[in-house]
């Protein structure tokens, strides 16, 4: 039986995982209606329109689900790697600030006063409650950062000469990156959108808010990916008696993501006026820099597979793949997510090239891309690892493990069908974020309608998969208490390289990251200010 303080910590982590699950479930049911509506198989009533649901789907799935899960995961990793009888006040404070903020944003969306989508581009003017709620969600994550950093500093004081545990390094680096990135959206909210939505200022600087949003918006996706990487490096090897391939490579990956996540946001604004093509080119180059930590991770994951297989006497590529525990949903989830990430990575390389982005910008291609990334490696890793975490956190046996296994494969099949159809529809020209895409019998639109049907079929399979996950997650709460294994993270291969202590200086790297962000944005921000753009009054157009 775990010690009492471990059980208290577990309750906090369980709260995060189940809050994330509820957000996923509610958001995904809206996703199903959208897929059916776009296929023209369902007509949505005006009292519950497509755009309101699209906003709820994006906010609940892309922002609330991911943020709660990553906060829970990172907190768990730091708490378990640094065992001590700690106060959980700060952990619960973060949880409740995030929960209240999410609820405020969700209520204002569902009541119809914030149909501004999850990018909330000004001058679409939502209720102030939406902006304040979203800001509270961000502030809650800052409290998590304080908690994680506080524990890491405590470790340093009490274990002089010891290396910062690998999971603590990854978790803290993830949240430091997140803090630097969220300063952008916090500035957008506090200095622009909230005063403007409260009618304290008459107009809003549209291009400036867009730039602040994307300063935050792209690192947001690396925040998700870093959550998945924490799982791939530190938990997945536990499922096949493997180890972390290399301590130094893992730490280097997280530090590179800290440095390279922020100075890239303009690649979301390639088609915008008011930003010179020179700066767009600079951000293209920095965006491609993320290729390095991605390829390093692909290498480390496969090297860990291979070394573990060799220890078990297995040799050869196919034999190694076949040897892996494909019947364990905690493995099949993240592993199938890795397969989806291949398509996500290829699509991302295309989007980051501004010539090719001209063809796919704001088409369904982009929707396919982020579903196969945040809905692929990220969500499938989170769901898969939940099958490993929930029994250990609750002290109960996993309910219906066969259903859990089927859930991961159903997700993979559904996502392959849906994202492939979306990518293809985008190349044919189908716009994203649009309720009705038949354009009243246009022959151009007729070409992409079959793809929308396939997307609806894939989306329906995905929804079934989420129902299966919710059934297992809820069912496990009612199985009898049992003796479960403690949560232990993967250890490093003994032959791994000795890590340079430089990689543990997260604070120093954070300063470098801020300098990179400044260099990438000082020019475009200066150009915007020098242009003296007019403000826009904004309105509610829904």
């Amino acid at each position, binding site marked *: 039986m775990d010690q009492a303080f471990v059980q208290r910590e577990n309750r906090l982590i369980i709260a995060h995982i189940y809050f994330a699950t509820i957000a996923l479930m509610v958001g995904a049911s809206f996703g199903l209606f959208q897929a059916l509506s776009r296929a023209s198989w369902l007509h949505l009533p005006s009292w519950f329109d497509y755009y309101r649901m699209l906003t709820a789907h994006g906010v609940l799935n892309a922002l609330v689900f991911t943020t709660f899960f990553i906060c829970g995961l990172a907190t768990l990793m730091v708490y378990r790697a640094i065992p001590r009888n700690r106060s959980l006040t700060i952990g619960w404070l973060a949880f409740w600030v995030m929960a209240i903020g999410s609820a405020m944003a969700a209520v204002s969306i569902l009541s119809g006063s914030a149909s501004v989508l999850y990018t909330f581009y000004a001058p679409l003017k939502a209720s102030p409650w939406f902006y304040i709620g979203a800001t509270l969600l961000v502030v809650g994550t800052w409290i998590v950062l304080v908690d994680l950093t506080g524990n890491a500093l405590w470790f340093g004081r009490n274990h002089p000469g010891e290396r910062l545990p690998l999971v603590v390094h990854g978790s803290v680096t993830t949240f430091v990156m997140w803090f630097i990135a969220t300063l952008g959206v916090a500035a957008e909210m506090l200095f622009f959108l909230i005063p403007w939505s409260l009618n304290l200022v008459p107009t809003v600087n549209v291009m400036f808010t867009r730039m602040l949003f994307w300063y935050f918006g792209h690192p947001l996706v690396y925040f998700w990916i870093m959550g998945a990487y924490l799982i791939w490096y530190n938990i997945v090897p536990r499922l096949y008696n493997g180890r972390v391939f290399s301590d130094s490579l893992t730490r280097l990956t997280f530090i590179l993501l800290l440095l390279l996540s922020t100075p890239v946001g303009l690649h979301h604004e390639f088609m915008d006026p*008011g930003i010179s093509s020179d700066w767009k080119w600079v951000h293209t*180059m920095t965006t491609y820099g993320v290729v390095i930590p991605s390829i390093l991770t692909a290498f480390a994951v496969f090297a860990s597979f291979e070394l573990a297989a060799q220890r078990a006497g297995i040799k050869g590529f196919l034999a190694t793949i076949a040897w892996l525990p494909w019947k364990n949903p905690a493995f099949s989830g993240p592993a199938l997510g890795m397969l989806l990430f291949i398509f996500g990575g290829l699509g991302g390389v295309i989007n980051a090239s*501004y*010539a090719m982005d001209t063809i796919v910008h*704001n088409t369904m291609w982009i929707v396919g891309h982020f579903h196969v990334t945040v809905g692929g490696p990220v969500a499938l890793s989170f769901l898969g690892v939940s099958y490993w975490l929930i029994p250990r956190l609750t002290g109960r046996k996993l309910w219906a493990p066969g259903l859990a296994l089927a859930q991961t494969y159903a997700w993979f099949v559904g996502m392959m069908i849906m994202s492939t159809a979306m990518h293809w529809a985008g190349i044919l020209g189908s716009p994203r974020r649009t309720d009705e895409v038949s354009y009243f019998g*246009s022959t151009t*639109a007729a070409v992409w309608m079959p793809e929308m049907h396939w997307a609806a079929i894939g989306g329906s399979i995905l929804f079934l998969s989420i129902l299966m996950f919710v059934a297992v997650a809820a069912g496990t709460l009612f199985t009898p208490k049992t003796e479960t294994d403690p949560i232990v993270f993967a250890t490093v291969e003994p032959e791994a390289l000795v890590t340079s202590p430089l990689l543990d200086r997260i604070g120093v790297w954070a300063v470098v990251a801020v300098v990179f962000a400044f260099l990438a944005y000082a020019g475009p921000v200066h150009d915007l200010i020098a242009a003296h753009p007019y403000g826009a009054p904004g309105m509610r157009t829904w």
Partner: protein
Amino acid sequence: MHKSEHAWMIFSIVTLVVFLGIMGVAALHDDIAPPSHMQIIDPTKVAQTAPFDKPGLHQTGAHQYDDYVIAHIFSFQPSTITVPVGSTVTFYATSPDVVHGFFIPNTAVNLMVIPGWVSEETHTFRTAGTYLLLCNEYCGAGHHFMYGSVEVQ
């Protein structure tokens, strides 16, 4: 193990250099650049500001046209233009209200239309037919009604 690790590092860096090299040639040698027009306009006075006080198609030379488009909720003004095959059209678009998109599928005309700014892109229509023009950025309840066409005859 150390050797493979380093080899892979070098592979990833070479990949990066190759990607950027190809794009660098396209950007710097072939002069392929994204739309980055820097012109501002008062969004509350679009209809009174030249040239958007006379929106529509203006011939500027043999097979050369300028099209000044106001993108507003929930239509383009003008929503349809007609040009002969082989025409080169420079589109100028702006918005008096919220952010819109200006997208002609099967061409490289794909612009964000931002209130306060003028977006610009040029395209030569070499094949006859009806080109769909649509708003590809969410702009409100009637977003999916916001479309038009370029008739190339």
